[in-house]
């Protein structure tokens, strides 16, 4: 049976549970049965087909090469057998769907499996299934949106089969990894699923409101495959009868569900009961207008009011950011992401374009790093299509691509990427002839971009236009032409509008004043997505006030929440202790004071002088107290954090002065391959940086050779390795062995919960550090010699 023909039916009936029907013995692997006892599996398929299932799922839920590793069962072989036996069991009238379940591991930011590893495993499954003649592919019981994306892309890129995707949600309407229904729906539709829905999770009663929610976010056919109620906590048995289960189904039909089946605890009787109950019932009609929205893997941002795109992660005109990118110092990017998130940005722009950087390599790394610390959706900003594609692949959710323009080449290269990955797109209203002066001409180019996008199937609500801000100093009509173009795009085309706001004041004095006023004018003219610095004075204030005055803030709730304390603060400015020294501030762990006093000290002292005569004596004093048992870890860290903020100020100063570095030497720190417990290593890094060392932090789960290569490339004198698991100290030993072979002059220091001095010696480390302070002490001896 052809899937497209099936879709013409009012309802399509799937199957129910497979595991319980197979009556597995303890430890018995269901996927092995495809090869050893095919008849046992075929009998289940036949029972479902006889009960009225029009699509049966092959017995391949766990037939992922990653999951079957070590079991002696070959995934592709099991899949080919499963598809063939299913087709033979159910005959021509019923479709056999290749069933794909999760790998059981998590992808970033929650986990460490790479997108590529997940993708390859799913691709192996899809190729085997398609080769054996599967009629379609179903991806089910998914929790991690990025893993789901890997599976869906693998299916779409390696076969021509239709793909159904269902995810599993908990009572709070999110998956285990925190993915909301809205984000799942918009992402999976964008990636080309043929139908989407919810399976497993809970019983029909609990899933019904979730289906109603999902129906609002997608125009795709919907799938419901609930469990047979909730399991008994002691016996694990499901309690709903087939009739009780079926009784909920008309309500599912009402909200537009077309595909019906069951998951855990359901049997052929359930499918028969559902078919019977839905006889003579029609599917509810659905509104096809999807809301304009973006998402990350854990957060949806609805574009129903002006939303702020934070512009700080962009090296243009920012020396410190440029340096961070060249040094692969992703923590600096993470810090900027956190500051902008806290300041109130709704979306973050990510641009890594600077000479000396391979964008296709660095953009996806930056995206991963940023998503570790913020749940805001991102705007992928590059003129390099390869970089855009690399980032689009590993982005969990629906991002914005910035940008395409009216040039034929740009339209031909960027728009297909946007379509393939289901992103939204910013169109710049310029073309081969440059940026037009007039609003009318920019509007015309914008309209052309929209038409091209729509021709490729990119929905109108996903096309945003940037009518381009030119600096006001170039001509008095410039700002008004921009504003007129924004107004026309918003009112005549109904599209989202984007502008880089601060360009308006380039080359003029008192830029903040101009920026604020222009922002206000642009918002009033229909700007919906200002690209701006949310930390810049008055900018977020302007946005919040506009939202409130323009009716986007019911009961002024958000405005009041943002400002109700300002009165009190203005009335009583925080008392600043006058006699506080920088050394005191660090000893007492006062971050803001430490930064402020460092800024002041830089007016009279050289950076190195500040480090050696103020910061380090303070840290030494705290360190001595720590060793003497007078202060404990929290105070030590608090002082180190204050020193860190002082160093932040010094670094900023040095980059802008292009002076000599205050660094005392380079040290690599890394958590070894396989290990993801990072906090100990991060404490060590913090303290080493405090003492003026230039720390190259390679992060966690770092392959041995990468550590060695980095050490050699940077002529690093000392490498610090951390491991928290007995299973990963082997990787530590391997790293040290490689270092000894390839770079013997480098010193190694190791630490972590499972290490001991004896073990450190066994694996050939030069030093065992029982805590972060001990690492600093060792570094001093290495660099003084």
């Amino acid at each position: 049976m052809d899937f497209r023909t099936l879709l013409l039916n009012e309802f399509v009936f799937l199957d129910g549970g497979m595991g319980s029907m197979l009556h597995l013995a303890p430890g018995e692997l269901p996927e092995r049965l495809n090869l050893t006892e095919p008849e046992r599996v075929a009998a289940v398929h036949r029972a479902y087909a006889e009960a009225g299932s029009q699509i049966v799922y092959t017995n391949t839920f766990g037939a992922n090469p990653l999951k079957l590793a070590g079991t002696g069962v070959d995934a592709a072989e099991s899949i080919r057998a499963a598809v063939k036996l299913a087709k033979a069991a159910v005959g021509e009238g019923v479709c056999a769907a290749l069933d794909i379940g999760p790998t059981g591991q998590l992808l970033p930011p929650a986990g460490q499996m790479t997108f590529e590893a997940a993708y390859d495993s799913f691709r192996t499954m899809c190729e085997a299934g398609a080769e054996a003649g599967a009629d379609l592919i179903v991806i089910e019981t998914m929790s991690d949106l990025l893993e789901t994306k890997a599976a869906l892309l693998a299916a779409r890129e390696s076969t021509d089969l239709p793909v159904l995707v269902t995810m599993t949600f908990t009572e709070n309407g999110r998956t285990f990894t925190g993915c909301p229904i809205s984000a799942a729906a918009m992402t999976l539709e964008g990636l080309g699923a043929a139908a989407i829905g919810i399976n497993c999770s809970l019983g029909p009663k609990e899933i019904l409101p979730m289906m109603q929610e999902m129906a609002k976010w997608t125009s795709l056919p919907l799938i419901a495959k609930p469990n047979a109620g909730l399991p008994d906590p002691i016996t694990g048995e499901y309690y709903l009868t087939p009739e009780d289960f079926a009784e909920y189904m008309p309500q599912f039909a009402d909200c537009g569900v077309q595909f019906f089946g069951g998951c855990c605890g359901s049997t052929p009787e359930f499918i028969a009961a559902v078919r019977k109950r839905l006889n003579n019932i029609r599917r509810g009609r659905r509104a096809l207008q999807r809301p304009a929205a973006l998402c990350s893997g854990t957060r949806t941002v609805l574009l129903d009011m002006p939303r702020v795109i934070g512009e700080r992660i962009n090296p243009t005109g920012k020396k410190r950011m440029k340096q961070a990118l060249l040094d692969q110092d992703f923590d600096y990017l993470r810090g900027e992401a956190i500051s902008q998130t806290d300041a109130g940005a709704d979306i973050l722009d990510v641009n890594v374009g600077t000479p000396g950087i391979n964008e296709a390599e660095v953009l996806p790394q930056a995206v991963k790093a940023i998503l570790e610390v913020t749940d805001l959706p991102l705007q992928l900003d590059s003129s390099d299509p390869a970089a855009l594609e690399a980032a689009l692949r590993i982005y969990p959710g629906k991002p914005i691509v910035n940008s395409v323009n009216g040039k034929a080449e740009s339209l031909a290269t960027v728009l297909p990427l946007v379509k393939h990955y289901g992103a939204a797109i910013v169109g710049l209203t310029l073309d081969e002839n440059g940026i037009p002066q007039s609003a009318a001409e920019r509007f015309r180019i914008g309209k052309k971009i929209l038409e091209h996008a729509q021709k490729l199937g990119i929905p109108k609500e996903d096309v945003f236009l940037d009518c381009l801000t030119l600096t006001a100093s170039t001509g008095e009509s410039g700002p008004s032409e921009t504003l007129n173009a924004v107004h026309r795009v918003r009112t005549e085309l109904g599209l989202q509008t984007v502008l880089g706001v601060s360009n308006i004041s380039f080359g003029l004095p008192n830029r903040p004043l101009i920026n604020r006023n222009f922002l206000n004018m642009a918002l009033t003219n229909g700007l919906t997505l200002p690209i701006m610095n949310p930390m810049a004075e008055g900018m977020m204030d302007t946005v919040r006030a506009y939202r409130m005055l323009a009716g986007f803030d019911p009961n002024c709730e958000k405005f009041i929440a943002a400002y109700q304390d300002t009165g009190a603060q203005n009335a009583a400015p925080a008392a600043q202790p006058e006699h506080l020294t920088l050394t005191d501030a660090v000893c007492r762990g006062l971050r803001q004071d430490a930064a402020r006093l460092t800024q002041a000290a830089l007016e009279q002292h050289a950076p190195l002088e500040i480090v050696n005569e103020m910061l380090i004596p303070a840290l030494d004093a705290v360190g001595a107290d720590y060793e003497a048992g007078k202060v404990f870890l929290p105070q030590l860290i608090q002082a180190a954090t204050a020193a860190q903020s002082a160093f932040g100020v010094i670094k900023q100063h040095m980059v802008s002065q292009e002076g000599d570095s205050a660094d005392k030497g380079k040290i690599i720190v890394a958590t070894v391959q396989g290990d993801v417990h990072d906090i100990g290593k991060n404490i060590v890094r913090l303290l080493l940086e405090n003492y003026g060392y230039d720390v190259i932090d390679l992060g966690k789960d770092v392959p041995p050779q990468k550590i060695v290569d980095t050490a050699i490339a940077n002529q690093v004198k000392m490498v610090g390795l951390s491991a928290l698991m007995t299973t990963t100290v082997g990787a530590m030993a391997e790293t040290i062995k490689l270092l000894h072979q390839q770079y013997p002059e480098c010193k190694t220091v190791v630490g972590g919960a499972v290490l001991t001095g004896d073990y450190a010696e066994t694996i050939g480390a030069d030093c065992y550090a029982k805590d972060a302070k001990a690492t600093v002490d060792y570094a001093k001896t290495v660099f003084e010699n």
Partner: protein
Amino acid sequence: MNPSDLDRAEILMYLGTPSLTPDLDAVLEQCIESLCKAAQPRTIYRVLPVTHTETGVTLGGLPLQGRDISLHLTGCKEAVLLGATLSAPVDALIRRAEVADMTQAVMYDAVAGAAVEAVCNQLEAQIRQKHPYPYYTARFSAGYGDFPITQQGDLVRLLDAPRKIGLTVTPHQTLLPMKSVTAVMGMSHEPVKDARRFCCGQSCSECPYHETCAHANL
């Protein structure tokens, strides 16, 4: 979670400090509140048959390795296998703090340790109520004594934990989300005199990790 569920003394133990200054205490209270808000504790358990064999012990058909776990279940015909996690948002909270404010990160880490213990305590209380055995052994986890951490994956699969509570294990046997636990508790009609204590069968002074272990330094 409720902040009052957490044992403050235990948090201080993980922080390696007998007390906190008033300003750090305020930071801790803030961290406890945020973490309790972010945490979505999920638990699962199974009561499984225990079989003692010549080579050791099996739980629900799964052979468990090492002498300690075998002794821990001496005389037990059934045991509880449990899994608990604070879920992904807690990991995200800690990741973020590691960049934004290390003091908070260290606090969150300690609070999360106490929180996952509290979740296990609550689950254990429920289990004891539902399955009225007079004696339960302590919660013993893979990695304690000679019960190898490499069995973590087997335990997670036996619980169907990825699907039931979103608890997964990496190829290197790390539980993810990170603030998670699996453990085995023997159920018995007699006191289990050979049952193992907290983290290993030995006294703390013999333990190779004595110097850095938070519990040993209580």
